[in-house]
């Protein structure tokens, strides 16, 4: 009995030591310095000296590092951290109000992919760290909860890894997202096809396999709307619940209707099941835009040749030729053994946008920073960024295609790492 108690006490002591010695993951930040390059106008004798600069610019993020969105959060976190590190290596952000360069201190919490916990983390960041801005996590439901808290607390919020447009239709003033949204995804697919494929060869008969989720409903509606406008005809529009196992009925309907293009936003298990069954039932669309499921880097390995020729709109690709991408890839390669992941670039861009906005605002006042973000007009690692009044970003929406088990950037042409392969050969001939 005594030995048991002793063991328990030792373990509890160890855990307590671990807890008290650990802190959340603030980024390494140098001490604030006077901006060397800042204009040093001689102050008039009556001008008051600037107030003492705070030690850090506090920024907070709640990211799903564990739970069902853990894989997304793992791509977002390094993007934020690298950007903060790069900015701090240069001394921080120049803030005119203090006439000083101030380093950013980023506090990251894990919300376990639970919107209730994400809300709690954002309240903590607001009350304890007094953050000037929030950086979002990943996935629509997480952003729906956290963006609302940002609105409540009046803290500027930059979030990526969600394409759901509905969140931006709430009238939020503090939400900004430099990430392609459903309207762009629904429009660009037809624009790219019309630009890349000669008339007469285009896959004009469209099948939509709509997931019964908010994003699925939103995109299906927009696809239908745009199809007619760009000269395409929706011949099959079928619905399915997430985590369905049998897609054979809708596949056979698409095959029977002679559909040449497939549009869908399945989650990874559904996407895998869908394509395996398409292969078994012998229906190969000439062109497939499958958002979400094939974004996972394991798609190529899991699907083999069946997964090739599928295209996606993931928001970014490491092959883009914008300033800073090469350095970001090198850093990522050194740490993870591969170029930066799809969400890492947009996450990096969020911090670039925030730093630029703080510098232009010249103050750490949240409303001034919000206004400065709204007026953003800069080039980041995801390319040029401006924002619309609803907080959606005007950003590039690159098209990626799986080719020989690799994600290749096929559009826009001037950034492409490979040509768009069209039409997709039948599954059995690959």
């Amino acid at each position, binding site marked *: 009995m005594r030995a048991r108690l002793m063991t*328990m006490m030792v373990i*509890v002591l160890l855990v307590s030591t671990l807890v008290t010695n650990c802190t959340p993951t603030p980024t390494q930040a140098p001490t604030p310095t006077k901006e060397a390059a800042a204009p040093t106008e001689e102050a008039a004798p009556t001008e008051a000296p600037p107030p003492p600069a705070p030690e850090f610019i506090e920024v907070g993020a709640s990211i799903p590092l564990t739970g069902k969105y853990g894989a997304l959060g793992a791509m977002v976190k390094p993007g934020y951290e690298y950007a903060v590190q790069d900015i701090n290596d240069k001394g921080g952000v120049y803030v005119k109000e203090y006439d000083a360069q101030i380093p950013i201190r980023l506090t990251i919490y894990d919300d376990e992919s639970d919107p209730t916990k994400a809300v709690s983390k954002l309240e903590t960041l607001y*009350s304890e760290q007094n953050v000037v801005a929030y950086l979002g996590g990943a996935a629509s439901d997480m952003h*729906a909860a956290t963006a609302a808290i940002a609105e409540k607390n009046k803290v500027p919020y930059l979030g990526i890894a969600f394409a759901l447009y509905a969140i931006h239709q*709430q009238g939020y003033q503090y939400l900004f997202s430099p990430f392609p949204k459903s309207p762009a995804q629904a429009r660009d697919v037809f624009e790219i096809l019309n630009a890349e494929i000669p008339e007469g060869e285009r896959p004009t008969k469209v099948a939509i396999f709509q997931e*019964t*989720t*908010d994003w*699925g*409903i939103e995109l299906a509606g927009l696809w239908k709307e745009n199809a007619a406008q760009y000269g395409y005809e929706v011949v099959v529009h079928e619905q399915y619940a997430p985590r369905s196992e049998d897609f054979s009925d809708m596949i056979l309907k698409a095959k029977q209707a002679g559909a040449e293009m497939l549009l869908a936003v399945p989650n990874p298990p559904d996407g895998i099941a869908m394509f395996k069954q398409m292969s078994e039932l012998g229906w190969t669309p000439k062109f497939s835009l499958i958002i979400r499921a094939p974004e996972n880097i394991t798609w190529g390995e899991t699907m083999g040749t069946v997964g090739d020729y599928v295209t996606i709109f993931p928001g970014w690709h490491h092959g883009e030729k914008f300033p800073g991408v090469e350095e970001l890839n090198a850093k990522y390669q050194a740490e993870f053994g591969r170029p930066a992941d799809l969400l890492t670039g947009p996450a990096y861009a969020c911090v670039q946008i925030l730093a630029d906005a703080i510098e232009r605002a010249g103050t750490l006042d949240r409303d001034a920073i919000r206004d400065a973000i709204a007026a953003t007009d800069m080039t980041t690692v995801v390319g040029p960024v401006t924002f619309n009044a609803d907080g959606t970003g005007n950003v590039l929406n690159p098209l990626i295609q799986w080719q020989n088990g690799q994600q290749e950037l096929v559009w826009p042409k001037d950034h492409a790492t490979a040509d768009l392969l069209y039409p997709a050969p039948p599954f059995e001939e690959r």
Partner: protein
Amino acid sequence: MQKKGSQVSKKIAISITIVLILIATAALPLVVKKDSTINLAILVFLYVTLSSSWNILGGYAGQTNLGHAAFFGLGALTTRLLWLSGRPFILSLLAGACVAVGFALLIGIPAFKLRGVYFSIGTLALAQILYITVGNVFPMITSLPTQALITYQLVPRYYLALVLALLTIGTAYLLVNSRLGLGMMAVREEEDAAESLGVSALQHKLLALSASAFFAGLAGGAFAYYHVGYYPQFPFTPVWTFDAVMIAYIGGTGTIVGPIIGGIFYVVVKELLALKLVELHLIVFGVLFILAVLFLPGGLVEVWSKIQTAFARRARGQEAQAALPRDTGI
């Protein structure tokens, strides 16, 4: 006589402690102005309500319900739909609880034909069916309108959660100390024996299920009032069941205090670990949970009884020592 006196003073001490705790919790938002603390307290009360409500059926009536999230979710769904469509919040909240009870009664009669682990699996399956159905029928995120966000205050949510927690604990206390409660416990201990003594097992189990569902529905309604934006399917996720069960086990099932201590431990320790350890917190919390189960199978309430026993043993030892003739060394 002396024993009776010490019992009276013990009761007075307990009453004073309860009153002090009530005053402290009621005054918290007046003293603490940090939203993060108020938010954490709301979560504690919410989990205490949910766990205490599970404990009525699981702890006292001995029916391990693994579909508790269904009641919580139905409360949340009904309250949110009615409230956001302009109905008075209190009416929406009560409607949510009533819908949860209605569903409980609907599933109760067939579900109680199952016993033991089959009952648990049956309730889990029913909750999963509801989870998937709600996801299909209500796929859109429910967010508070921007106008509501501007006026959003945590303090009314805090008092609502506090009142619900007190109501659940109070009802559980009254129920357990009543004839009905004794019947429930008799069913828990040996159903057939209870039946042979004239205690209707089905009636008592249905009553416990209804009470359990009612308070879980209220907790769901409070969640709907508190949360700014979520998928309607979210309160139906099994995690709400497992959290309630874990809290009851950490604190001590079949006790009034267990879910309270468990709720505080679960929410506060987990949050502290999450803030301090970030990516490692789930592992550390898991270790702590395993330790609690291994060394305190009766839950954290057992710590108190162990301390009392240790003190009593020590006091008895000292008395016995004093009674022994002293060795003068001559």
